[in-house]
C-alpha cells in the first residue's frame, strides 16, 4: 500500500487528512458547483445582476423546465440517445468479432491489421473530416443521425478491437482446444465460449463507448445542421449562441448535457475504471 496507510487508530491524523482531501475536492469541483448553483438562479436575479448574492427565489424547476419546453433540448436529448445506443451496440459486436479473429488466429498480416486498428485511433479527426463529410453527402446521409452512427461505429471499432483482442487473448488456450476437440465451428466457439466469458470486458467497454460517443462534439458539428438531428453536444453550443447572457438557463442546459454520462459512470464505476485501465495498463 503506497502511500503509507494512515493508521486506523490515529484519529486526529485521519480527520486532518479527510479535511485536507475535502478542501481540495471542493476547489477541484468549484467550476462545476458554480454552474450548478447558477442553474438555480431565477431570471429576475440574472437580469438584475444578482448572481452570487442571496437568491430572491430558487428557480430550479422553472429553469430546467424552460430548457426543455422553450428550446429543442428535449429533441437534442432524444437524438443523442438515437445516435449513442445503436452505435455502442454496433461497436461491441464488430469489435468482439474482430478481436476474436485477431486474438486467436495466426495469419500473415495479423499484427499489421492490429496495428492499423490501434494507430487509426490516434489520427486527428481533422484528417478524416473532409472525405467523411463528402462520403455522407454522396450517400445522401448528410445531416442524419445515421451518418453519425456510421462514423462512430467505424471509428470506435479501432479502440474497441484493441480492447477486446487483448481480453480474448488472455483467455486460457485450453478452452478453445476443448471446444475444437468437441467439433465446434469457430462461430459456435465465439457464441458459446467467448461471449459469456468476455461479459465484464463488454460491460466496461460499453460504458466507455457510451461516454465517448455521447460526449462527441466535433462530428456532431461537422455532419449535422438541423435541430431535429443534432445531439445535445452540438445543441448546447447552439443554445449558447442564442441566449448569450441567460446564464441560468445555459447552466441548466449544461447540467442536462452532463448528467447522463455522469450517472452512468456512478452506477458502473468499477466497470468504467476497469475499462480505462484494462486497455491501457494491461496492454
Amino acid at each position, binding site marked *: 500500500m*503506497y502511500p503509507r496507510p494512515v493508521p486506523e487508530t490515529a484519529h486526529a491524523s485521519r480527520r486532518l487528512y479527510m479535511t485536507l482531501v475535502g478542501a481540495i*475536492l471542493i476547489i477541484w469541483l468549484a467550476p462545476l458547483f458554480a454552474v450548478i448553483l*447558477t442553474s438555480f438562479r431565477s431570471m429576475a436575479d440574472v437580469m438584475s445582476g444578482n448572481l452570487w448574492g442571496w437568491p430572491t427565489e430558487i428557480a430550479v424547476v422553472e429553469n430546467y423546465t424552460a430548457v426543455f419546453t422553450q428550446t429543442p433540448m428535449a429533441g437534442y436529448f432524444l437524438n443523442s440517445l438515437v445516435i449513442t445506443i445503436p452505435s455502442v451496440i454496433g461497436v461491441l459486436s464488430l469489435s468482439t468479432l474482430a478481436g476474436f479473429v485477431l486474438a486467436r488466429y495466426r495469419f500473415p498480416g495479423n499484427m499489421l491489421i492490429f496495428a492499423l486498428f490501434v494507430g487509426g485511433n*490516434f489520427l486527428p479527426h481533422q484528417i478524416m473530416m*473532409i472525405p467523411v463529410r463528402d462520403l455522407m453527402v454522396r450517400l445522401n446521409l448528410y445531416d442524419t443521425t445515421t451518418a453519425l452512427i456510421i462514423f462512430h461505429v467505424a471509428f470506435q471499432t479501432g479502440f474497441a478491437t484493441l480492447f477486446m483482442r487483448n481480453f480474448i487473448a488472455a483467455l486460457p488456450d485450453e478452452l478453445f482446444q476443448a471446444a475444437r476437440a468437441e467439433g465446434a465451428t469457430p462461430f459456435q466457439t465465439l457464441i458459446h465460449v467467448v461471449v459469456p466469458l468476455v461479459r465484464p470486458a463488454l460491460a466496461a467497454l460499453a460504458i466507455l463507448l457510451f461516454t465517448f460517443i455521447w460526449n462527441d462534439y466535433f462530428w456532431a458539428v*461537422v455532419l449535422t445542421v438541423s435541430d431535429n438531428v443534432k445531439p445535445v453536444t452540438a445543441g448546447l453550443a447552439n443554445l449558447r449562441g442564442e441566449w448569450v447572457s441567460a446564464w441560468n438557463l445555459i447552466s441548466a442546459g449544461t447540467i442536462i448535457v452532463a448528467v447522463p*454520462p455522469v450517472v452512468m459512470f456512478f452506477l458502473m464505476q468499477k466497470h468504467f475504471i476497469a475499462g480505462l485501465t484494462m486497455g491501457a495498463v494491461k496492454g
Partner: protein
Amino acid sequence: MTSLWRRHRWWLTPTLLILPGAILFAVVILASSVQSLWISLHDWDGFGPMIWIGLGNYRELINDPQFYVSLKNNLIWLVMFMLAPPIGLAIALLVNQKIKGMRVVKSMFFIPLVLASVAVGVVFTWVYTPEFGLLALIFRAFGANAPALLSDEHLVTFAIVIAALWPQIAFCMVLYLAGLNNLSEELVGAGRVDGARGWNMLRHIVLPQLTQVTFIAIAVTVVGALRSFDMISVMTRGGPFGSSSVLAYQMFEQSIFSYRFGYGAAIASVLFVIMAVFITWYLTRIIRAEERGA
C-alpha cells in the same frame, strides 16, 4: 456448395467475422485519411470540380501568418498539457488511502473526465465571464478586477488550456491510481527496510514501477494536446481574431466557413505529419529504453 463451404470453413469463417469491422474501419477511417492528403493537393470549394495545384496549398500555408499563430498555440498546448501527468500523480497519491468513503471521493475527482468537452467549455466560459464569473468573484474578494481572459489575445490560449487540463488531469489520475494499485508490496517493503522515505521512496522505488503508466499518460496527453478542437470551438471560436486558434481549428474554419477544402486538407495533413512524427519518435525512444533494460 455446402461441401465447398465445409472444406474452406476453417479460414472462411474468421475472414467473414473480421470483414465488417475491418472494411468499415478501412473505408471510413483509413481511406479517408489518405484521401485528405490527396485533396490537399487540389483547390476545392466542396461543390465544384477539384483543381490540381500540386503543393500550392502548402506554399500558401508557409506564408500564412495565421498558420504560425496556430502552430505557436499548439506548442503552448503541448507544453502546458505536460502538467497533467504530474498533477494527476499528485492527486492519485493524495487519495490512495483505504479509508471509508474514499471510493466516493475518488469518483468525484473523476467527474471532469466524464463531462462532455462542450460542457467543460461552457463551464469555464462561465468561470471566466467578466464581472460575473467565478474568477471575477475570486479577484473581487482580493479587491481586484479580473481580466477578461477570453478576450485577451495574449492570455486566451492559456485560459483555454487550463479548462482542458481539468479533464486531462482526471484521466492521468485514473491511470496512476491503477498503477499504484499494482505496485509490488515487496519492493516497497524492501525500500522501507533500506531506509528510503518520502521523496527518496517516490523517486527510487515507486516511480520506476510506474514507468509504463507514465508512458501511456504522456502519450495520451500529447495526442490530446495536438488534437484539441472542442474547447476552442466552444469557448472562443478561435478568437479573438484567430489568436486562440490551433491547427485543428484553423483547418475546420477554412473548410466549413471559408469553403476552402483543399487548403483545410493541407492544414490537416500538416497536423497529421506532426503527430505521426512525434508518436514514432516517442515510440522508438521507449522501445530502445526497454531494450536497455530500464
